[in-house]
């Protein structure tokens, strides 16, 4: 284990040939958490409360069940077609033409989620921090930093994710006790008073966010074993769900489901009412949002990397770096498309588009896995061998 860690740190492998990027279990967990959590924890509560009323917190918990099949699916696919990312897995399992079509669908779904993440982050920053700054400026900054992170590669983004994960975790530990004086458990009940409909609707919306761990399939080649990929997905999903659910419960217990559904970002609004421990700051929400923003930055960087990687593999290129800047620019442009107001964004994108895109992604992975399970593909050519479109990927950046 120590030798493996040292290998990953580069010890004993100095100089010219950089080692193949590898991400560990903890880094994979942090990456998976960064995939949906930063946006979900801000925007999801309002939609879940509106859909689920008092049952929203149960619906969110129920949605966590989707994580188990998604994690298992990722592990199973990586087991069937090891050491490859999703695009190559699809090409290998489904054939060159059909595989590329399926992979393109996956990349398209990823781009939708990425554009949403950029736009949602920009709206949040505009609302809470820079009300007079045009959203396109904020989106541009978010996309630019994502391009920088993606340029440096997956390892860098994964390590930044660990740092963001730990920082936000520490922030939550400090903040959550502040909610408790306002919390009233009676606001969580009664449950199922409107039948199972609200519960299922809120669960469906939540599943659309938590299921985004399926995006880890794009970096499947960087995990040491399929088991680590599976474990990373499951742990990331559990961490996201646990913290997101806890914050939702505290928000609903503090403001009631109606109050939560009325705000665009209920957790932040409730936090504004928290009396901080020291009278140093009047408002702590800007600090908290800064922490979340840092995690959102890592999320966007990862998404830019995944998109650049997907596009480069679709184009048959080994190095994804030349695609980073165009992808980031396209992402920035796509983030400007859509509703111009925050309620519109919540209504259409958060409630409909994100669950739809996540569903397509999961379906795509399931199709690839099913095909690979029914008709096991030939093992990929060893690294460095001449590629014929279905071979191994080369050095990844």
């Amino acid at each position, binding site marked *: 284990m120590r030798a493996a860690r040292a290998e990953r740190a580069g010890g004993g492998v100095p100089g010219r040939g950089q080692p193949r990027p590898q991400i560990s279990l903890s880094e994979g967990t942090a990456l998976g958490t960064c995939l949906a959590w930063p946006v979900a924890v801000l925007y999801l509560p309002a939609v879940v409360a509106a859909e689920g009323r008092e049952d929203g917190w149960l619906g969110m918990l129920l949605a966590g069940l989707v994580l188990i099949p998604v994690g298992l699916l990722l592990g199973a696919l990586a087991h069937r077609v090891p050491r490859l990312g999703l695009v190559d897995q699809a090409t290998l399992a489904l054939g060159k033409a059909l595989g590329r079509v399926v992979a393109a669908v996956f990349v398209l779904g990823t781009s939708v989620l990425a554009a949403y993440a950029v736009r949602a982050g920009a709206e949040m920053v505009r609302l809470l921090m820079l009300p007079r700054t045009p959203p396109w400026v904020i989106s541009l900054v978010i996309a630019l930093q994502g391009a920088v992170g993606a340029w440096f590669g997956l390892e860098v*983004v994964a390590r930044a994710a660990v740092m963001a994960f730990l920082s936000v975790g520490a922030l939550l530990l400090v903040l959550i006790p502040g909610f408790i004086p306002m919390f009233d458990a009676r606001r969580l009940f009664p449950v199922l008073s409107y039948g199972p409909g609200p519960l299922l609707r809120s669960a469906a919306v939540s599943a659309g966010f938590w299921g985004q761990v399926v995006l880890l399939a794009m970096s499947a080649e960087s995990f040491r074993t399929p088991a680590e990929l599976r474990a990373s997905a499951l742990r990331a999903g559990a961490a996201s769900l646990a913290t997101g659910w806890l914050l939702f419960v505290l928000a609903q217990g503090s403001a009631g489901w109606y109050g939560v559904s009325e705000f665009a970002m209920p957790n932040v609004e409730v936090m504004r009412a928290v009396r901080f421990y020291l009278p140093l700051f009047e408002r702590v929400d800007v600090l908290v949002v800064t922490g979340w923003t840092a995690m959102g930055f890592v999320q966007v960087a990862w998404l830019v990397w995944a998109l650049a990687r997907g596009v480069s593999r679709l184009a048959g290129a080994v190095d994804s770096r030349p695609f980073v800047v165009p992808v980031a620019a396209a992402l920035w442009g796509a983030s400007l498309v859509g509703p111009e107001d925050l309620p519109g964004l919540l209504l259409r994108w958060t409630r409909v588009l994100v669950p739809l895109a996540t569903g397509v992604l999961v379906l795509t992975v399931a199709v690839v896995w099913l095909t690979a399970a029914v008709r096991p593909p030939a093992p990929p050519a060893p690294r460095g061998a001449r590629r014929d479109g279905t071979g191994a990927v080369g050095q990844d950046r």
Partner: protein
Amino acid sequence: MPFRPVQFLRRLAKRHFTARNLPDAGEGPPPADRLRVEAEGEYVPSVIYRRLEDNERWIRSLLGDSSDLVLRRTQVLGGKGTGPREALVCYLEAMADPAAVADVIIRAVSYEAGMLGSHVRSAPGAEPLLLHAGSLRLVREWREVLHGVLSGDTVLFVEGEDRAVLCATRGFETRSIEEPALESTLKGPREGFVESISVNLSLLRRWVKTPRLCFHRLILGDLVNLRVEVAYVKGLAGPELVEEVLSRLRRIKLEDPLGSNAVAEFISDTPLAPVPLVLATERPDRAAAALTEGRVVILVDNTPYALIVPCDMGMVLTSPEDHYVNSLFAFLNRMLRLLSLVITLTAPGLYVALTTFHAEMLPTAFFMRLQAAREGVPLPSLAEAVIMGAVFEILREAGLRMPRQVGQAISVVGALVIGDAAVRAAIISPIMLVVVGITAITAFAIPGYVALVAMWLPRLLFTLVAGILGIFGMAAAVTVGLYYTLSLRSFGVSYWYPYLPLTLSDLKDLVFRAPHWAMVRRPSQLARGEPFHMPYPQPPRPPHPLSRRPGRRGRP
């Protein structure tokens, strides 16, 4: 084969910018057919001549008939049954110790050799004649002869021999060992490296008394013949690491009299990185500690610094003092240093962001006070911060370059004239002075001058971005800086190691400073062959107060 634009551009740049036909760095004696020195239009062999006249003519032409070149003819005894043989003693007056030359070489050759009688066999072995010399060796190559003479050694040519005797008579003046100027400690040793590489080697040997300590000598550049010694402990430093260091050093084509910083720039993974990827230290104890961790130390002649590779962030943020104080205090000091790092990087930017964009975060009374202090100041916060930051950096730089007496005057001018007068004239606010002062003090808490200087660029960038986009902009800039530093490697080792990827066992001497008896393991990324400092933790076991025999625990 797919087109790879990045690799293509790299190849193109390498092809375009690589100088060709330069000689490689020498390592020990070069192959005989490699050295071809052109003089007066004729090529000569690399080995020395048998005829004394040829050697004399050749060394005169090689050294340009320099005025400090001393060539003295003498005689030595030949082999059994042969008469005395002509010999030539050659040294540079400016570099050799005249007393050593006179007492050891000339006397030994001219008089004592004669007195020793016929049992002395020599000339191919002229060594017995020169037993008084401290160190001598036989050489064949002109390159070795030249390097020895230029370093202060004396060479003895003997008629009819194609070998010469090189005697160590170096006697040029060097600075004595003094306390390190930039890495001084209160309780640690007061010795620092000096300009003489021989003295520095001895300093390292005194700390690491093991036969496994190896020095690998390299001579860089045909013009300056810069001597470089690569030190490592065999079995601790990974062979790949040692080989990588040597190969990077061998690639250097150095033709200027530069010091260790130039060498560091040549071998660094990212030469333009604002953070040190090759650590320069002036403390032998620190270099020795690095050796025992499995790192490699590079000593460069004429430079009072040793270079340590690989260098990670933990090394930059730790001070040698930490190992000479109680582990608890060392831990607290490290925490203070980390806090100082955060403050010095972000304080001006946070001030600008809070006063410009996020004033609602501050308590009302504090905000009103702040606004009152800024009343009448014509400049925006951003301009204030940038100007005062620049003034501070200029004062720091001026204070370093000035003699001490003038340096005090600069401090007075900086504090009174610029600070007090600027506030009185309402050019800047007093709060800004406080912020700049805190920034400066916290910057000085970070060990290492290079790290101190490296701070101001990111600080300026953070301040500028904070003035444009507030805390959001700062967060973006910090994240980009994080990406950049996370991408850095020093000889293959991640710059953030062991923080990221997180290795808890290696944090014992980075975030914390565990007691020495608890630091069982060496850094796992380096000394993989021998991962343990000691076989097991050895906490002190004081005798129990009720025990009868000292040293035994438990009740009697």
